[in-house]
């Protein structure tokens, strides 16, 4: 039965609810609506309550940092919002889709269409060049035609200042350069939402600043929503909204201007 299902939908991805890859929503629309999210891990018979009722709404085009001590649940929250994991209870809508109902395959398709990821350790594909890494989501996830890919990829490499390094493999790039490529990769599909878990943790402070500025610039130009989990004061400084997590609960909300 499973095989049949796969065959039937072969070539056509489970339809993303709306605006697949269609760029960011108008300012003010709600991208994420999380209500009373909990996440409990059962590790070696011991229950760890990583999230204990988190409710948060995220407007399109936000630049939000989740801060908090180590183990407070930042990564867990980002994983839920990024549809990498399912909440133990609570409601979660991303881009108007109830993502708690998606199966593995649908969740993968949803991520591919709606969400960009920037990882702490960059996670570029080592056998692909900078250009191919940026191109990857368009080729291997969204199956876009070559003509469309070319211009978009070059545009983004240009935007992150990596156009001249495009034929290098990740191992030939510095940490900052890798993270630029990773940002280009996260943005190339024009996702509504970009999630970045400690994106600057492996970078020196100077590079970290450049990376943050770059993401802010992309937000300003494209209107993509950025959510961070971070300790980096520079990100915190750049964020317009800062949530504090403590022991799996949101304990603070601080709005900033600029």
């Amino acid at each position, binding site marked *: 039965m499973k095989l049949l299902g796969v065959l039937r939908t072969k070539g056509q*991805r489970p339809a993303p609810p709306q605006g697949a890859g269609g760029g960011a929503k108008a300012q003010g629309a709600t991208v994420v609506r999380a209500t009373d999210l909990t996440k409990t891990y059962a590790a070696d018979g011991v229950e760890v309550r990583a999230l204990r009722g988190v409710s948060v709404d995220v407007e399109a085009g936000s630049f939000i940092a989740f801060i908090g001590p180590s183990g407070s649940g930042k990564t867990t929250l980002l994983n839920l919002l990024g549809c990498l994991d399912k909440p133990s209870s609570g409601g979660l809508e991303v881009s108007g889709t109830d993502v708690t109902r998606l199966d593995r*395959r649908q969740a993968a398709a949803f991520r591919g269409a709606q969400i960009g990821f920037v990882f702490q350790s960059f*996670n570029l594909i080592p*056998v692909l060049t900078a250009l191919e890494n940026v191109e*990857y989501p368009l080729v*291997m996830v969204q199956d876009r035609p070559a003509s469309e890919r070319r211009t978009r990829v070059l545009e983004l490499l240009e935007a992150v200042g990596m156009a001249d390094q495009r034929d290098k493999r990740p191992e030939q790039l510095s940490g900052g350069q890798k993270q630029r490529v990773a940002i280009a990769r996260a943005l190339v599909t024009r996702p509504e939402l970009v999630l970045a878990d400690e994106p600057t943790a492996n970078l020196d402070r100077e590079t970290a600043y450049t990376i943050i500025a770059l993401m802010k610039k992309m937000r300003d130009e494209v209107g993509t929503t950025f959510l961070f989990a971070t300790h980096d004061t520079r990100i915190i400084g750049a964020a317009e909204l800062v949530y504090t997590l403590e022991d799996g609960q949101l304990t603070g909300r601080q709005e900033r201007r600029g």
Partner: protein
Amino acid sequence: MVNVVKIAVRNLLRYTRRSLLTVSLIAFGVVFVLVFVAMAGSFKEAIVGSITDNYLGHLQIHRRGYVASIESLPLNLNIEPAKLAEIQQALREVPEVAGASERIKFNAMFSTFVETTGLRVTAVYPDQEFAVCPKLPTRVAQGDRTPAALARGKILVPELLARGMGIKVGATVVVVATNKDGSVNGKTLLVSGIIESATGPGGRDGYIHFEDAMEILRMPGKEITEVAIRLRDFGQIERVGRALRERLEGGGGGQAALEVHTWAQLSPFSTVARLIDMMALFMKVMLIAIVLISVLNVMIMAVYERVREIGTIAAIGTLPSRILSLFLVEGVLLGVAGAAAGVLAGAAIILALNVWKVSVRFGGSLQLFVLSPRIDLFEVLVASLMVIVVSVVASVQPAVRASRMEPIDALRHV
């Protein structure tokens, strides 16, 4: 698909040495199978050719019950003239028959006037016999190699006897035999040649002319012991054998009935031939094992080494089915590369074996068999396809494992 292949190729090239090692191992297995099949095939062909072309022919027809007591060369199980006519008629109607040789076989006393010994005699019409057993002349070590060597009054003496009794070409000998009625008769014959023995039944017989045998055995009419048949195409033996059997074994009934045998049924070498086929099969099983183990090993390693990468591409939204295909293609490419390299190397070796000829000698020194190993496209395709299919099978489990990984778990992996 192009991109899946590109990524798979790059991942293979990433661990160049390991991939090369695996490809070489597979290629090695393929080479082994192809060269073995080619060598065994030509070896078989050479021996079978030697047996059929020296003595047996492709098919033989006897009176029913003769083959069961063939060792004593009985004379009371001859084919009567009426039956012989039936056989001749049947053979004329089978277009695949290239030639037929009517023979009388009997035990005789063989004397040089100084010494006497026993001799198995095959009496033939020289033209018929030379047509059915084209290698017969090559066995004539000394003397006349033409059918004239078996003209009336001549005898070809087996080398072993000639050596032991000091018989030279041109000597006079006497052949004495008892016929089926018990009367003894003999005839003086001129030694026209010394013939080397050949492998297989009948390989040590002396040869005389058919009508000399009729005279020695005092036959009132023409009776024969057997008919040896040569076909135009070796591959038709089974089919023609069946057709003749149907036609000749059915009628007559009882003692007068006939029996048709193929060379394989008459020669113990057919067992060796079957053994060779089994060894070829065994080699193929080994090849399957090599491919299975080496591809499985590499792919398990590949998945294990790339857990974080799998987590990354899964997180980014690569569908499980595509992750599956990435790893499947990688494994299959190993098989394809190994098969291709193996076929090329195997073909080169087989070619080389044909250039620097390998020869095999059976028994005597006159008949030297140059092996000409050949492999047909079908065998090549079967071996290649087998390797590729097995490499798919070997990749399935690791690929499925990769496609089922949970991205968060995989990303956490260090």
